[in-house]
């Protein structure tokens, strides 16, 4: 039932996106059913008029038969081109953007972080064309069944007994459906292996991974692992197809035997003088036609079976998006300046599929106009806390407030507009340099001054100066552009996050991990002054996550996290005096910079 609704909705989409092409394709599909029947009828007429005469009429009918057959060739070829292109076009132009907006528009991150969800969205990202082909495959299957029914019904004119063949026509249809279900199951089962071999192939041919494979000389091993995964996937798929082939043959064998019996009936009728040879020719022609359309149905059905692999994720996405929409969306606007600040009140969050909370019972305030640093070893929950501030997750318990108001009640778009953030695993977008920065604030996308000062703020002017075409330089070597070094990418991401000019929450997650010492200092100073400016301008709070104690020591407050809890909090001086975890880690790093004689 859901499948029917799915195919109908895709067909509606096709009509909306390419009305003419879709209508023509559907029309030709239906026409094909009748063209085939028409040819069979014409063939019977030809034989009959040849016997009854006159010759001139028979000649005309012969011409008609040629035209009717030519039409079957034309419709077949047209369908091949039309179905391919309409599926391709609607898939790429209509379904693809809808899929991507749906995936990218989900407010949370869970679908990108949980294995079973990520699996599905990864499959879907390139599935638009296949889904549309699946939709047309269903049309082809329905038309194929229609052809079977129409042509066999034609035989009813020879003898009403022939209509009994209709019952036998279900043998191949049902047997095929059964076989195809097995194929579809095998496709789903082997999807993981298949994707693994794709990933392993990519490792072998992409330059970044290629250098390590060369160095460790493990290309052979990766190739072997790839071949194993491929074989594993393919052998399952071949086995399923063989089984489907056996079913198919069984179905058609039953039908052929019944059909031969019917043919014998016609022969007897003709020999008894009760029928014409034309009827005999009609019967045989229909048998031949059926065989050809059976082939066509099977070819498309095999495609459709492959498509089922995409259907489940697609339906899942629909449900998931619907479910997300059902959650009460906030409506209050995000304040454009903070008076009190941001507060985390008794927040606990456990990642779905895990049992240990990543953060538990965390209470913290981020007063307006202050800088807070969060430190801790990895796995301590500091990134999770930051993500909760960005509303990527909903707390399992407790709440996050902005000026006393639960952020769940604030409209998401406005809330996010109020944030400027840079993350440890920032995006590396292979576009021209300017675009990579300017997307940091879409309303200011065309503002060259803003882009320029964002680049300045991230100390990236030097990066741009070294690019062959300045800010217009395409990034990414495999797109014919320039490859940036890790530090240069990081500065690009920092520039991007500097685009927004009036955020009230600034998030910096390991902002300088890959920067050189001088850059780090420049960026640090510029960000510090930006924080101060925004703090006095609109009471903005800044949250820095860092392993570098040099970048956190000047913060107004420091939160030390361990195992999902805040274990120490205070200013740098207070924490050093406390002599706890923070002091210990700080000492460890500071020792490297001690300004005294080199140690032994």
């Amino acid at each position: 039932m859901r499948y029917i609704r799915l195919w109908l909705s895709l067909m509606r989409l096709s009509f909306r996106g390419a009305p003419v092409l879709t209508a023509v394709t559907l029309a030709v599909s239906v026409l094909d059913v009748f063209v085939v029947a028409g040819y069979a009828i014409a063939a019977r007429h030809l034989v009959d008029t040849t016997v009854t005469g006159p010759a001139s009429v028979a000649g005309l009918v012969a011409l008609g038969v040629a035209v009717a057959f030519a039409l079957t060739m034309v419709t077949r070829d047209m369908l091949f081109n039309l179905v391919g292109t309409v599926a391709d076009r609607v898939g790429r132009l209509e379904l693809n953007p809808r899929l991507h907006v749906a995936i990218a528009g989900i407010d949370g991150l869970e679908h990108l972080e949980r294995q079973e969800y990520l699996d599905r969205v990864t499959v879907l990202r390139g599935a638009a064309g296949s889904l549309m082909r699946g939709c047309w495959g269903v049309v082809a299957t329905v038309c194929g069944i229609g052809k079977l029914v129409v042509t066999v019904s034609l035989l009813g004119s020879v003898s009403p007994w022939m209509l009994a063949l209709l019952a036998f026509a279900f043998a191949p249809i049902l047997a095929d459906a059964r076989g195809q279900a097995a194929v579809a199951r095998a496709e789903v089962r082997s999807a993981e292996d298949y994707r693994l071999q794709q990933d392993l192939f990519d490792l072998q041919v992409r330059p970044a991974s290629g250098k390590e494979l060369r160095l460790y000389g493990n290309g052979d091993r990766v190739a072997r692992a790839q071949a194993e995964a491929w074989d594993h996937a393919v052998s399952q798929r071949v086995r399923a197809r063989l089984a489907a082939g056996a079913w198919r043959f069984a179905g058609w064998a039953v039908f052929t035997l019944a059909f031969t019996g019917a043919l014998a009936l016609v022969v007897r009728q003709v020999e008894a003088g009760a029928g014409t040879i034309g009827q005999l020719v009609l019967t045989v022609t229909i048998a031949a036609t059926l065989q050809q359309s059976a082939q066509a149905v099977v070819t498309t059905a095999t495609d459709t079976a492959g498509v089922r692999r995409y259907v489940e994720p697609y339906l899942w996405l629909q449900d998931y998006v619907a479910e997300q929409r059902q959650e009460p969306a906030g409506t209050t606007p995000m304040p454009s300046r903070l008076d009190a600040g941001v507060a985390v009140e008794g927040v606990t969050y456990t990642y779905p599929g895990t049992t240990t909370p990543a953060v538990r019972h965390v209470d913290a305030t981020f007063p307006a106009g202050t800088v807070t640093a969060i430190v801790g070893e990895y796995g301590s929950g500091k990134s999770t806390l930051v993500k909760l501030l960005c509303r990527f997750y909903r707390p399992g318990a407790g709440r996050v407030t902005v000026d006393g108001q639960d952020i769940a009640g604030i409209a998401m778009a406005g809330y996010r507009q109020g944030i400027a953030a840079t993350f440890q695993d920032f995006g590396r977008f292979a576009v021209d340099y300017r675009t990579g920065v300017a997307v940091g604030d879409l309303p200011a996308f065309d503002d060259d001054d803003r882009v320029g000062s964002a680049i300045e703020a991230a100390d990236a002017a030097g990066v741009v100066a070294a690019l062959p075409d300045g800010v217009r330089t395409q990034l990414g070597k495999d797109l014919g552009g320039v490859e940036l070094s890790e530090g240069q990418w990081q500065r690009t991401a920092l520039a991007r996050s500097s685009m927004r000019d009036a955020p009230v929450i600034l998030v910096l997650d390991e902002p300088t991990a890959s920067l050189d010492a001088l850059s780090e200092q420049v960026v640090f100073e510029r960000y510090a002054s930006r924080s101060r400016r925004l703090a006095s301008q609109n009471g903005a709070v800044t949250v820095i996550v860092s392993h570098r104690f040099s970048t956190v020591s000047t913060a107004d407050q420091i939160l030390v996290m361990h195992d999902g809890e805040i274990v120490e909090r205070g200013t740098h001086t207070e924490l050093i005096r406390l002599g706890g975890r923070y002091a210990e880690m700080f000492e460890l790093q500071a020792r490297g910079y001690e300004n005294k004689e080199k140690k032994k």
Partner: protein
Amino acid sequence: MTRYVRRAVRLLRTLSDLGPGPTAAVVALLVVAALMPSGLAVALGLLVNAVESSAGTQGSGPAGVSAAAMLPLVGFAAVYLLGYFAESLVGPLEYLAVSRVDRAHRARVAQMVAEAPTLDLVEDADTQRMIREVEADPRMGFDRTPGQGALGQVRALAGLVGVLCAAAVLAVHAWWLPLVVLAPATLNRFLRNQQAVVITRHWQAAMSGEMHADVWRRATVDAGAGKETRVLGLAQWMTDRMQRHIREANTPLWRYVNRLVLDEWSQLLLVVVGLAPALLLVTLAAADGSGSLAVQATVLSAGTAVFQLLGSSGAAHRIAGGDAVLTTTAKLAERLRPTDGGGHGPRVPGRGLTASALSGAMPVVTFERVSFRYPGTERLVLDSLDLTVGGGENLALVGLNGSGKSTLVKLLCGLYRPTAGRILVDGTDLADLDPGAWRSRLAVIFQDFVHYPLSLADNVTLGHGTPDEALGRAVSQTGIARVVDRLPDGWRTPLSRSRDGGVDLSGGQWQQVALTRAWLAVERGARLLVLDEPTAHLDVRTEAETYERLAGLRGTTGSLLITHRLATVRSADRIVLLEHGAIVESGDHDALMRLDGRYAEMFRAQAQRFENDLSGSRGGTE
């Protein structure tokens, strides 16, 4: 004509990857399927003949059918059953055949890339576009692969056998009849084949636009980028952007397909022209008594078979696509051919030195006035650089972002060839060394080290076989045990979210995996350890432990450490500073601090805030 033959031969040759048995089976089944229409034509002719001659007489055979009609009837059923049998079996076999051919093809492509003499050839944009074209992975739903091409070719040839047979059936009735039917049928096929070739060309032209679209296809499902795109509200914007690329890339193809659909009248005409005269002739002959209904039925059946068998457009597209892939593959092979160029003599693998003679010793690598620029660019990344690395020395390389440190590492590994100057390993030019032997003496962590979508164990040991006590020692050298403890299935846990039971690690955990990988290489005899920013994402404690162990290698293994955390290079035997493509400062920490140059400036920049604190006062500028 020869072009077609050459094309066919090249495609068919790929069937050697399938093996003789399956090839024979596929060919036999396809030929049987192709002979079916002729068989039916004959059976029909015989049946009509039998019925015609016995018309009006009550049948005497079983089921009231005359004995004369019985044989053709049984033949008819047999032909059908055989045909269905062939078709049912040929589908799975064809799938297997295509998979095997494509598997071998993909392995060849990977091999080609692996054997490319230098990495810059692989990095080249054209190379990557070609690889994408020939990767023969229908992930975008296209079936343009050598396997598809080869099987399309087999189908077309089997069809040709069927056509000849059908033509023979026609010729029995009149010798010229096949010519009347075949000429327009062949022309029709030729036109459709041309169309398939043009379509394939359009598909190739769309490749580069599709790669630009891929940037956003990937961004949608990337968790890291996903955080940014959400904060920035980019969902609609990046989709629009992707769509623009897709539309631009494919519009020519779609326009051409529109024309094809409108062009179908030519096919209508050609089929009518081919079939009508023959039908007309046999019909008139049957009508005036000089021919027979049996002949008419046979000619109708065999004539239409000729058109059908000359191959569907499907086969033509598969052939054109497979052929295009093989052509590009040949160009790619030419491009990546492992012979030397650029003024260097031909490389003699392993000349002068063998791996075994080298193992155990700590190599000394000397850069002699080495310059390097990336192909197609103007800027010299390295400019007459002189440097000696290794020999048990604990060397640190520092410099600003983009100063060429990572490039230097790639040159050291022999992944690039210098534009000018040379690199010597223990006095022998690196270009003359067997790359495999040289690389086995190195343990390297690149900044963008590989995240294998395999188990943790494989991630650590892939280069060096199964776990053994060397692994145990390597494990004890890094904090990896802590990572293992957190994994659901320990060492066997796949490190990829897209695998069943797989998990992804954090940046810091991945760095520990990479460190263990490098440490294992040292345990197995690598004597130069190169670490490019190995601890950027590690927490303080783990980082400190890592450097303590690194210091312990002194005297047994040379090391080259690249980092921006200058506290960690302080204890190096020697620190060199790379700027403007050359080494501008060299010495130990104290010497460089006394020199008061760029290094001192960088060190002070980082130390400053710590110093403020160490002196007891609250740091910062408030």
